[in-house]
C-alpha cells in the first residue's frame, strides 16, 4: 500500500449561525467527525448531496476554512495552528480547481498572467523567459494553443476557462489537486473532454486527486476510491468498483439509484426506487444515525446510537450502519 499523503482525524467544521437577532448563536455542523487517509497517487471521490459538507471538507484541507477541531495532517505535518505565512510554502503542493470556471479567473488578467501567477509567488527565481516557456508548455498540455496567452478569460467558453483553471493549478506540479465540481457547470458534450484531461494529467504527473462532486457517474470514471457523506458525516468508504457494484450503506444505494441513466428499459424502474423524504435541517440533525429519517430499514437502535464508521468485510471498506449485514439484498 502506498504512503499516506493526507490524514484527517476527527475533523469538525462548525459555522456559527445567528438566525434570530437577539437569540443564541447556533452552530451548524457542516463537517462532523471525519476520519480519512488519502494515499499518494490515488484519486479519491468525495460525494453527497448539497449540504453534506463535501466542499467544506475540501476547503478545510486547504485551511481556507479553519477546522473547529480535529486535525489535518499533510505529509506528517499538522496544519492546524500554522500561520498564513507558514502555510504559504505548503500551498505549492496543494492546488484547487473550482466549479465556476469563469468566476475563478481574474477578468483583468490575461490567460498568460493567470497561469504564471503561481510561478511568480512560489518560484520567484524563475526569469521571464523560463516562466513563459513553463506557461506555454502547460497551456499546450491542457489542450490550449500558445496564442491564447495574451487573451482575456471572457473570450473563452466554459470548457476552455476550465482548462485555464486546470493549467493554473497544475503549473506548480502539485502533489495534491483538489477538484470541486469541476465539470458541473459545463455542457454535457464538454464534460467528457475535461474528465479525460484530468485522467491524462494524473497519469502523466502522478498527483493525488480529491474529487468533490455530486455527479456519481463522473466519479465512477475518475476515482479509485469514494467517500460518501451525508449531513457532514461519513456514511461509506470503498474502492470505486466495489462501491458501485455492491453499495453497503442504504444511503449509498439510494443515491446511486437516483442517478438517471439514458436507457428507457432501465430508467423507469430506477425512478420507482427513489429515496423518500428530504434532507433534514443541518441545524437540528436527527439523533443517532443522521440518515435514519429517510431510511427504510431504521429501527429503534438507529435513533439512539450513532453507528461507528467501522471496517466492513475487509480493511478496504468502511460503513456507518448498524444493519448493513442484515439488509443487504440477495
Amino acid at each position: 500500500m502506498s504512503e499516506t499523503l493526507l490524514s484527517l482525524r476527527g475533523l469538525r467544521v462548525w459555522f456559527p449561525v445567528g438566525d434570530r437577532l437577539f437569540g443564541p448563536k447556533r452552530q451548524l455542523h457542516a463537517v462532523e467527525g471525519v476520519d480519512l487517509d488519502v494515499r499518494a497517487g490515488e484519486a479519491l471521490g468525495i460525494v453527497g448531496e448539497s449540504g453534506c459538507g463535501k466542499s467544506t471538507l475540501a476547503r478545510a484541507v486547504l485551511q481556507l476554512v479553519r477546522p473547529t477541531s480535529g486535525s489535518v495532517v499533510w505529509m506528517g505535518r499538522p496544519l492546524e495552528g500554522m500561520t498564513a505565512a507558514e502555510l504559504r510554502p505548503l500551498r505549492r503542493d496543494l492546488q484547487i480547481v473550482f466549479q465556476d470556471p469563469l468566476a475563478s479567473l481574474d477578468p483583468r488578467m490575461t490567460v498568460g498572467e493567470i497561469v504564471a501567477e503561481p510561478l511568480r509567488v512560489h518560484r520567484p527565481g524563475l526569469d521571464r523567459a523560463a516562466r513563459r516557456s513553463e506557461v506555454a508548455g502547460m497551456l499546450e498540455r491542457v489542450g490550449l494553443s500558445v496564442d491564447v496567452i495574451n487573451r482575456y478569460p471572457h473570450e473563452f467558453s466554459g470548457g476552455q476557462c476550465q482548462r485555464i483553471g486546470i493549467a493554473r493549478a497544475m503549473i506548480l506540479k502539485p502533489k495534491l489537486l483538489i477538484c470541486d465540481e469541476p465539470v458541473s457547470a459545463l455542457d454535457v458534450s464538454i464534460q467528457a473532454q475535461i474528465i479525460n484531461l484530468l485522467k491524462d494529467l494524473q497519469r502523466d504527473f502522478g498527483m493525488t486527486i480529491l474529487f468533490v462532486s455530486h455527479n456519481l457517474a463522473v466519479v465512477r470514471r475518475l476515482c479509485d476510491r469514494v467517500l460518501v457523506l451525508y449531513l457532514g458525516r461519513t456514511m461509506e468508504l470503498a474502492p470505486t468498483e466495489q462501491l458501485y457494484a455492491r453499495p453497503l450503506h442504504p444511503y449509498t444505494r439510494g443515491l446511486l439509484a437516483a442517478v438517471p441513466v439514458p436507457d428507457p428499459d432501465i430508467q423507469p424502474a430506477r425512478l420507482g426506487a427513489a429515496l423518500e423524504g428530504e434532507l433534514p435541517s443541518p441545524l437540528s440533525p436527527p439523533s443517532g444515525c443522521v440518515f435514519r429519517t429517510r431510511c427504510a430499514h431504521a429501527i429503534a437502535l438507529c435513533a439512539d446510537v450513532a453507528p461507528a464508521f467501522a471496517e466492513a468485510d475487509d480493511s478496504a471498506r468502511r460503513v456507518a450502519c448498524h444493519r448493513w449485514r442484515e439488509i443487504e439484498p440477495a
Partner: protein
Amino acid sequence: MQSREPILEIDALSVSFETPDGVINAVNDFTLSVHAGECIGVVGESGAGKSQSFLAVMGLLASNATVRGSARLQGRELIGLRGRELNELRGVKLSMIFQDPMTSLTPHIEVGEQIAESLIRHHGTSSAAARARALELLRQVHVSDAERRLDQYPHELSGGMRQRVMIAVALACDPLMLIADEPTTALDVTIQAQILQLLAELKRGKGMAMTLITHDLGVVAGVADRVAVMYGGRIVELGSVRSVLKAPRHPYTRALLRSMPRVDEPADRPLLAITGQPPNPRRLPPGCAFHPRCEHASARCRSERPTLVDGPHSAVACHHPVEGDAR
C-alpha cells in the same frame, strides 16, 4: 396515442432576436406535435433553442424577439395572441414550470393562495372551495404535512418542496398541457428522482400532454415517450425514446451518448469526448451546424443543410445517418 388530434401542434416555428450585434436565429423550422397522455422530451445543450421554442409557444419571449410559424393548442393559434386572450389560456389550458421555483413563486404570498389564485380568477371558484382544492393539489403532488404548508411562504420550503408547489400551481386549472423546462436541474439527485417520478405519475393519471425540456438524456429516459434532440436551433433527431436512445441515427445524438459517463457502467469503456464546443447561435456554421464536430462530415455537410427526414424508427436531419446500436 397518435389516433386523435394532437393537443399542441407546432409548425415551422422560428424565433429570432434583434440585438445590437446582429440577428440571432435561436430556433429554426421547429415542427412538433404533442398528443394527450404523451410526454415529449426536448433535449439539447445550452443555446440549442429548446427553451426558446416553448417560451414562444407560451408568449413569454423577450420583446426583441420575432416569431414566425404556427403553434396551435387544440386547433387554436397561439402565435400572435396578446393580453387577455393569452391570459385566458396560460396557466389554464397551457401551463409551464421552470428550473428555479424560488423565482417563479411570489415570495410574499402564502403557498395556498398562490395555488388558489388561478382557480378564483379563471374558474370563478369561491375562495373556500379554491382553498380546499389547493389542499387536494398539494396532496396530489405529495407535499408532506399539506395542511400546514397552505399558510407557509415559499422561503419556508425546501427546493424540492417548492418545485412540488410550482407543479401544483401549474395543475390547478387542469391544463391540457404542461411544459416543464429543466424542472429538476437545480435539485439534488434524490429529490430529482422524486419529482420525475411525480411527473410520470401525473402524465399517466391525468392523460395530460407534457413536454420535458432538459439537457440530460437520463432524465428523458424515465419519463418521455418520444424525444426531440436539438442542436444549433433545430431538431436533428425525433423519434420514440427507445429508438433515439438505443439506436440513435444522428451522429450528434450518438456522440452525446458515447460521451456521457454512466453510473451503471464500469470505467473500462473509453469516454469518447466530442471535440469542439456547441455552436454560437450568432454564427451558426453553414450547412449542417454539427459538421465541425462530426466525424462523418463530408463536403456536402459543409454546404447543404440537411432537412428532417422520416426514417424507419426516427426522423433525422443528416446526410449520413448512422445505423446500429448506440455503443
